[in-house]
């Protein structure tokens, strides 16, 4: 049977790409061919941007409250299709169905917040800046924006940007990850059903050539990106050269501190989710586990953590008893294995070897790893420094909270950091001093809600304004100052 060809969505129409270059999209659990996705041509990229530019004048003149009504209709459709949207995420990415449902919910929350645009976009004013003169600020949309999306949250991440951008009156071009494009196809089917005017949202598939085509296109006003640090840095530089605004959310190496007074049982469940949820393929995953406490506390805690990790059921994410799915593709698995081997060669102690597979449901081994846990990791080791993006926990023993904060400060990354404790003073010191954009207190995955910005510092973020919340409204608008005097 011929694989289903994914289409681009340009100017309100589903269109076949003219390219000869297609990428196979396979279910990472079973290896089944799900579809083939085009690597769009430069002309198609241009068509999409042009369509967005043509749609912009009338869309920006559509009242914000009317723009919000399109989003209200989209929410209703998203709710109606909640489970189908979640299934597609699991099929193309491999995450568990619970994780996909969580992702769907988070995506919908973004649209919900964006419907508040008539309030969120309001400006400010003051009378009598001078005798008989008034001054006010209005927030205006800018034109065409684009998003270059990652593979790990194929449904949610584009929704960090699209609903806010179009609610502000901009138009949009999305390039999903070539590894996981199907979730966005489903979303765009619903946006088509909502009846958005042609060209307001456009979808072009492809890899780095399409991304560069968008970034360099003179009609693109700003770029949003989520992905690795090297690429984020490159995009940030390029946007600087092009004079475009940019949100580039990048890689991470997140630290989790466990103090000796932590609530053990609840902490363990949170840590297991943090380190092994989404198979470790998220920028908010725990990576380095810093344990403070005496020998007994340390041993007891680590043994329990390893015991829970051993018992995680790994298999097809659509099996409801499965708690961890595969890596998204075989290359990702190979990359993670490389880190495990490096950890061993640098002297860390592998106490749980995820390369020894224990899978449920008879799935092929191609993309799977079980959880791995290293002890005796030191800050200079590759395991402690580099982003692994897989189900590997590195445990570092630390003397006290000050040492933990010093270690976290020394990391080039600054996406998330968490502390588990019952002590208010430690907690307060941690949140005050730690250099990370998202800080958790007894929370393992510090995912900001849609109405707060998604933090990120140091090499985990390039830009000024962050995604989500009021900051992204500011990103997608330009303030205009008006001063009036009437004679």
């Amino acid at each position, binding site marked *: 049977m011929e694989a289903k060809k994914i289409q681009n969505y340009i100017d309100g129409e589903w269109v076949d790409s003219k390219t000869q270059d297609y990428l196979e999209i396979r279910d990472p659990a079973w290896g089944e061919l799900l579809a083939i996705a085009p690597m769009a041509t430069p002309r198609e990229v241009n068509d999409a941007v042009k369509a967005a530019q043509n749609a912009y004048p009338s869309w920006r003149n559509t009242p914000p409250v009317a723009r919000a009504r399109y989003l209200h209709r989209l929410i209703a459709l998203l709710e109606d299709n*909640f489970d189908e949207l979640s299934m597609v995420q699991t099929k193309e990415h491999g995450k*568990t*169905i*619970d*994780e996909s*449902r*969580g*992702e769907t*919910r*988070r995506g919908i*929350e973004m649209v919900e917040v964006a419907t508040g645009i008539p309030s969120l976009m309001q400006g400010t004013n003051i009378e009598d800046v001078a005798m008989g003169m008034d001054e006010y600020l209005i927030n205006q949309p800018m034109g065409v924006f684009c998003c270059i999306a990652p593979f790990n949250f194929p449904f949610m991440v584009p929704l960090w940007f699209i609903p806010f951008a179009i609610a502000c009156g901009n138009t949009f071009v999305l390039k999903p990850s070539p590894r996981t494009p199907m979730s966005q196809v489903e979303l765009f089917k619903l946006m088509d059903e909502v009846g958005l005017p042609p060209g307001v949202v456009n979808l072009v598939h492809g890899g780095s050539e399409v991304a560069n085509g968008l970034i360099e296109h003179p009609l693109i006003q700003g770029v949003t990106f989520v992905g690795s640090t090297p690429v984020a840095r490159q995009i940030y530089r390029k946007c600087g050269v092009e004079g475009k605004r940019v949100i580039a959310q990048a890689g991470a190496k997140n630290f989790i501190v466990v103090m000796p007074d932590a609530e053990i*049982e*609840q902490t363990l*469940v*949170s840590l*297991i*989710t943090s380190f092994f*949820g*989404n198979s470790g393929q*998220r920028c908010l995953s725990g990576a380095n586990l810093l344990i403070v406490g005496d020998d007994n506390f340390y041993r007891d805690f680590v043994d329990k953590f390893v015991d*829970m990790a051993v018992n*995680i*059921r790994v298999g097809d994410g659509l099996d*409801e*008893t*499965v*708690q*961890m799915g595969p890596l998204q593709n075989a290359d990702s698995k190979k990359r993670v294995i490389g880190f495990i081997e490096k950890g061993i060669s640098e002297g860390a102690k592998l106490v749980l070897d995820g390369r020894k597979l224990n899978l449920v449901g008879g799935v092929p081994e191609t993309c799977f790893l079980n959880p791995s846990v290293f002890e005796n990791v030191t800050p200079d080791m590759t395991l402690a420094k580099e982003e692994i993006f897989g189900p590997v926990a590195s445990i570092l023993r630390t003397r006290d909270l000050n040492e933990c904060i010093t270690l976290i400060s020394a990391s080039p990354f600054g996406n998330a950091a968490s502390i588990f404790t019952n002590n208010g003073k430690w907690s307060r010191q941690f949140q005050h001093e730690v250099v990370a954009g998202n800080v958790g207190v007894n*929370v*393992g*995955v*510090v*995912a900001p809600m849609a109405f707060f910005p998604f933090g990120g510092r140091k090499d985990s973020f390039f830009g000024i304004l962050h995604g989500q919340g009021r900051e992204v409204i500011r990103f997608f608008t330009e303030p205009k100052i008006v001063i009036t005097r009437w004679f």
Partner: protein
Amino acid sequence: MKLNTMAAVMSFVTKLENDAALFYQGWAAKFEELEDIFSAWSKENKTFEKRVKQTYFGVITDAIESTFSFGRLDTTDYEFDSDLPEGANLQDVKKMAMEIEATLTNFYFEAAQQSEGLMADLPRLFKHIANKREDRLTKLSL
């Protein structure tokens, strides 16, 4: 079977509530004394299932540890046999109903306890349903 994810708990809730609803629907038609109450409970079972699903879909986020929240729930502890012979009398039916409600009460209390530290809305709903079932037990024992 161990229920270790919220997705699995949701599917099991659907099975439990549907099985119990079928039991009430079937016997409501056979005993006039039970018709009103069993018909109402059959409908309410569907509502319970719907509310669990709505709450689950409504509150689940990737920050919520739904994949690892349940460790000690086992379906074998909460399975019930709702088959009664055609000629069963009123007392037999009431006795079976009490067994079903006691089983479901235990299930919801245990599910609430296991998910308590992690998900606010679901344990609250699980407790609410367990309390409702305790009310049913009281009615059945009268």
